[in-house]
């Protein structure tokens, strides 16, 4: 009985997930016995140093990597079936917009591939461009936009086909701090409006704490989860919440988790 209750709200469920890459220098344990469940509507951040497997875990959810052991379900099916059912939108570290397509053309790309009708394409493009504050920029080419705007366009592209899950791999990693703060704020608003389940990989402790309802702290060699922190911050988060004692306490716990995972290297 309890099991069905959990699975009804659970969108992503990983248990004892491992992924070993065979390299010339011997096997590399990118992930080792990772278990985690993500409920619908959660904003989950993955944080940890390079090589901790946070991106690999996200790529496993997206079925861009295949785990070597353990089970992983997305929307109650295998990750690959979920990918084929177009269960998620994926935002990469670089915007990766096609230079030969306009902003609207780029956002339209997944819709064309998925076979939406012309009128629905136009409708959805307009809607998601408004969602990321890029109305009126549809006819511009990517090089005419700033880095932050390009990344917003790439988020619009991932949202265009309205998948319930949004996976983001350090989407703001290449942007400066001011733009980043702004986009973080925008992302929270967008999350509140769309009620999507978001998986978010980051290097930044303040970013993780500010955005997430759940923070997954990971450590390298082998990549594993060292701490899962349920955020106590309210859903409504102005930027200055980052100066509150509660925020600082959570950030401290994340830092402790990172340090523990690192052993005596730090």
């Amino acid at each position, binding site marked *: 009985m309890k099991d069905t209750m959990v699975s009804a709200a659970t969108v992503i469920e990983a248990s004892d997930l491992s992924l070993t890459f065979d390299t010339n220098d011997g096997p590399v344990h990118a992930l080792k016995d990772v278990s985690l469940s993500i409920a619908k509507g959660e904003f989950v951040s993955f944080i940890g140093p390079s090589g901790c497997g946070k991106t690999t875990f996200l790529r496993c959810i997206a079925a861009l990597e295949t785990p070597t052991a353990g089970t992983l379900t997305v929307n109650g099916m295998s990750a690959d079936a979920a*990918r*084929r059912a177009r269960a*998620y939108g994926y935002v*990469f570290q670089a915007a*990766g917009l096609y230079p030969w397509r306009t902003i609207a053309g780029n956002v339209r790309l997944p819709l*064309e*591939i*998925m076979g939406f009708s012309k009128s629905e394409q136009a409708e959805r493009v307009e809607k998601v461009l408004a969602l990321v504050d890029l109305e009126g920029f549809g006819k511009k080419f990517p090089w005419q936009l700033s880095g932050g705007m390009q990344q917003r366009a790439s988020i619009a592209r991932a949202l265009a086909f309205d998948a319930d899950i949004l996976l983001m791999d350090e989407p703001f990693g290449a942007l400066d701090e001011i733009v980043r703060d702004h986009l973080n704020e925008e992302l929270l608003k967008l999350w509140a409006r769309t009620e999507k389940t978001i998986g978010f990989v980051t290097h930044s402790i303040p970013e993780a704490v500010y955005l997430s309802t759940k923070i997954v702290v990971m450590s390298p060699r082998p990549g594993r989860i060292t701490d899962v922190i349920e955020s106590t911050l309210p859903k409504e988060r102005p930027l200055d919440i980052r100066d509150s004692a509660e925020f600082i306490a959570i950030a401290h716990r994340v830092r402790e988790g990172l340090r523990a995972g690192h052993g005596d290297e730090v």
Partner: protein
Amino acid sequence: MRSVLPILTVLGAIVVLWYGATVWLNAQWTYDQAARAGVEVSLPEVVTDTLSQERPVLPAPHQVAGGLWDGLLGQKVTSKRSLVYHGWVTLSATLLGFAIGTGAGILLAVGIVHNRAMDMSVMPWAIASQTIPILAIAPMVIVVLASLGITGLLPKAMISAYLSFFPVVVGMVKGLRSPDHMQLDQMRTYNATRGQMFWKLRLPASMPYLFASLKVSVAASLVGAIVGELPAGASSGLGARLLSGSYYGQTIQIWSALFTAAILAALLVMIIGVLERRTLKRMGMVR
């Protein structure tokens, strides 16, 4: 406009050097003629004579210009002495060969990118094909096709295509493979088919590479068409013009044909350049 002066300077230097070489190379003939006639020639007489010989070792620039002028504009375009006529014969073979070569090159590149067996097998052969001197292949192509009853334009176009497909294969393979891992992964997240990946990502991404290749390949096509005219003993075409010029020691005719070929090649490359700019501009890839 600022580049006009340097260009003219270099051009002027070339013309001066050319005149110098003309006098130097043709003087022997003048002295021989004078010795045979038993007369003395002064230096000004030697210079005047070397610049106006009928069959000079090296024709003077004004002689070549005269030959070009006469060949391009002084004849009816249907005349066998018109360079426009011969140029068109060669150009038609060039264009057909370029079309065949480009088509074959693109198809091979698509195959190489999408099929592992082709990837492993085709490229070494394509490279090997280009290491064989075209002059060795051309007569065989002409003879074999002639024995099958195929003569005229097509054999020349085949030789032209043989030279022009290679740059297209190399450029297109590179271009079709230019999308990075992230872009390919992104297509996977949309569950795109290989066909969609090709039409929406690989092909548009390869366009700049394609045009760079086409510029090399169109010039190679022209060389191929000219070479294809040599072994056939063709009576028309710039290659035939070169050949008959060398048979009869008509150096002015050879040089006029050479310059016609050079002008033709420059025009073809320029046309590709214009197409490139227009296409890439329409694709938004040029700022």
